[in-house]
């Protein structure tokens, strides 16, 4: 059974529509800025330049929610545009998030600690599951709602869960992806791990020092063939491969040889029925931390050997959008397939000495891109790979 993709939407620091995002990609221009997150202005981060109230007004959102939920609504609504809810198409929503309503909770918890104006009602948006219920409400989806929370691989795992639910005959159509609003909690957390780069991040570069955080949401719509006939939508691409594997090495660090990443890429190829040489572009996880990029480079070399296809990390454009990244990068994969695009790995100059890999350096159009492999790796050694393919 084939899984068709019939909608896509994203919002991040490089734009709140597909077209705006494409302009940044084409211009090789980052959305990461110093001081973009008001509460902690000393960091270089990728922020959607609207307040929660502005998001609601600008995108005609009628459901209340945290920043995570609101960003999710923007992207999910874009993805679902032109789709109609219909009793004969069982439709679900599966969203990945790592922080849920933390942007609101952390403000409220500060009030609690300072014993000023503490309003417990504001915690009603806290739970990650609630953010998905709020997104589903905005879309009118009621049949099935699920939230995956596996840190930075959450959205990729939502794609996988959605595809499996269709294959298992439990849903006909499912909106899948991820969303994370930036919070002081997350920024302070990554700061405590000492994996920030004070400058713009440099994925796969020998001089890389760490990541820049971002925020956003990316969603796509998956449909079965039966659903496609009823919805009348034209497929943009197919989701052909997926896998999740455990690195089982360390709670936050990847194994030096990228064992979990190797399993997840190989299994995704197996699910898709593809060989490594069938992949035309790899959208790497590529966070620009010394550990991830070395480990992922080894895993890529293990799978692709001497014939490594063009690869890049797009995180130097958007920042690392955590649970949203696999959703946003799935949108990039669809665009790559549809328009024959290759995205540059910004800020690269010197290959990692140990592995010598050179990523895609320029924005290119007019390529033939049939299969894109996209990696997302999270805390807890949670390694996921999805493969998107041309119709």
């Amino acid at each position, binding site marked *: 059974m084939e899984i068709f993709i019939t909608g896509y939407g994203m919002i991040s620091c490089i734009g709140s529509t597909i077209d705006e995002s494409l302009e940044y990609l084409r211009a090789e221009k980052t959305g990461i800025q110093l001081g973009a997150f008001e509460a902690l202005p000393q960091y270089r981060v990728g922020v959607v330049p609207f307040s929660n109230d502005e998001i609601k007004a600008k995108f005609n959102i009628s459901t209340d929610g945290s920043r995570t939920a609101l960003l999710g609504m923007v992207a999910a609504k874009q993805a679902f545009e032109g789709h109609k809810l219909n009793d004969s198409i069982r439709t679900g929503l599966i969203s990945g998030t*790592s922080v849920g309503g933390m942007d609101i*909770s*952390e403000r409220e*918890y500060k009030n*609690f*600690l300072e014993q000023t104006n503490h309003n*417990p*009602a*504001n*915690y*009603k948006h*806290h*739970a*990650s*599951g*609630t953010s*998905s*219920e709020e997104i*589903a409400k905005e879309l009118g989806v*009621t*049949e*099935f*709602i*699920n*939230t*995956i*929370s*596996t*840190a930075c691989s959450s959205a990729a*795992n939502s794609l996988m*869960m959605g595809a*499996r*639910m269709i294959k*298992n005959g*439990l849903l006909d159509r499912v909106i899948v992806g991820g969303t994370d609003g930036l919070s*002081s*909690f997350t920024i*302070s*957390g990554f*700061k*405590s*791990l*000492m994996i920030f780069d004070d400058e713009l991040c440099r994925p796969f570069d020998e001089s890389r020092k760490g990541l820049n955080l971002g925020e956003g949401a990316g969603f796509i719509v998956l449909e079965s063939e039966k659903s496609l006939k009823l919805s009348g939508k034209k497929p943009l691409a197919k989701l052909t491969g997926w896998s*999740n*594997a*455990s*690195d*089982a*090495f*360390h*709670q*936050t660090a990847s194994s030096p040889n990228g*064992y*979990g990443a190797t*399993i997840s890429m190989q299994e995704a190829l197996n699910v898709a029925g593809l060989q490594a040489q069938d992949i035309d572009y790899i959208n790497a996880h590529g966070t620009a931390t010394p550990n991830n990029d070395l480990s992922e480079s080894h895993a890529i070399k293990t799978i692709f050997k001497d014939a490594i296809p063009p690869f890049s990390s797009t995180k130097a454009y958007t920042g690392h959008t955590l649970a949203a990244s696999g959703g946003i990068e799935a949108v990039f994969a669809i665009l790559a397939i549809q328009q024959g695009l290759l995205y540059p790995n910004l800020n690269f100059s010197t290959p990692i000495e140990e592995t010598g890999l050179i990523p895609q350096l320029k924005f290119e159009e007019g390529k033939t891109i049939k299969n894109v492999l996209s990696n997302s790796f*999270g*805390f*807890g*050694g*949670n390694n996921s790979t999805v493969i998107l393919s041309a119709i």
Partner: protein
Amino acid sequence: MYYIHSRASITCQDSFRTDNVCEKLVVIDDTSDVVSPEYKEFIPPASLRRLSPVLKMGLTASIECKNQSGKDFDAIVVGTGLGCLKDTEKFLSTFLTSTSDFLSPTAFIQSTHNTIGGQISLGLGNHAYNMTHTQNSVSFEVSLLDAMMCINEGKKNVLVGAADEKIDFLKEVQPNLISADFPLCSGASFFVLSPEKSEVQVKAISTTFSSENVLTDIAAFLDVHNLEMEKIDLLLHSNDGIEEHVTPKDAFNFLDYSGFHYSASAFALHIAHDYLVNEEKEWALIVNDMCPTNIGIMLIQRDEA
């Protein structure tokens, strides 16, 4: 077929390594606390100091399941309603009050929901599929659904469970973050699901996210599975009102024994399993309407042959 092969619960009951948990159940109150096993039998001392209650409970219950089944898991699926609350609160307090540029990362690292699943994979050296679902009161049900799909896809030994922890702050934010008429509690229940035959199987599961009336949902579910309530030997529910309208052979509210937390229905599955085996009955129905719009229904069957 989705057979239950191992089970392990750490709860406010004397439930861990207990042959028949039903014999041990006592109604809990506000003073009830988790009956902790000897964690040091399962977790090395250095880790033990670092791990929060929900991590210790989830990891220990999983290791116990592994010990019971003796087989490596080919999938690990974890549900949690609110995740690692203690470490989340700890890191919130730390970064909101600290003036230092250097914070300890431990609480942050352990605050993400999938730390439970991650610790299980690390503790067992397991490289398989590892998923974490969080959907408020039906987090266990969506996890069980995933585990059942894993079996459909050919996996043989699937660890599935759910864990949630109580922190004092939850009382401050009732009824906004969590709305409960029962004492709050922590709990973790894990199972091994397999297509290979055992005495008790999960026959069916359903989730509803826009329920208007739980009784209608129960009736529709039973209808789909060609069953009548009169045939149900044990109904476990989370809402005493249900009992006024239906007539199973036996029924009780599982929250009286689990306390209120979003993983409570996982413990209800453990209770249902032990009840069917020890009473030699056939059917148990678990109706979770801890959140009135989101309903989970599980049908459990003991093979009489």
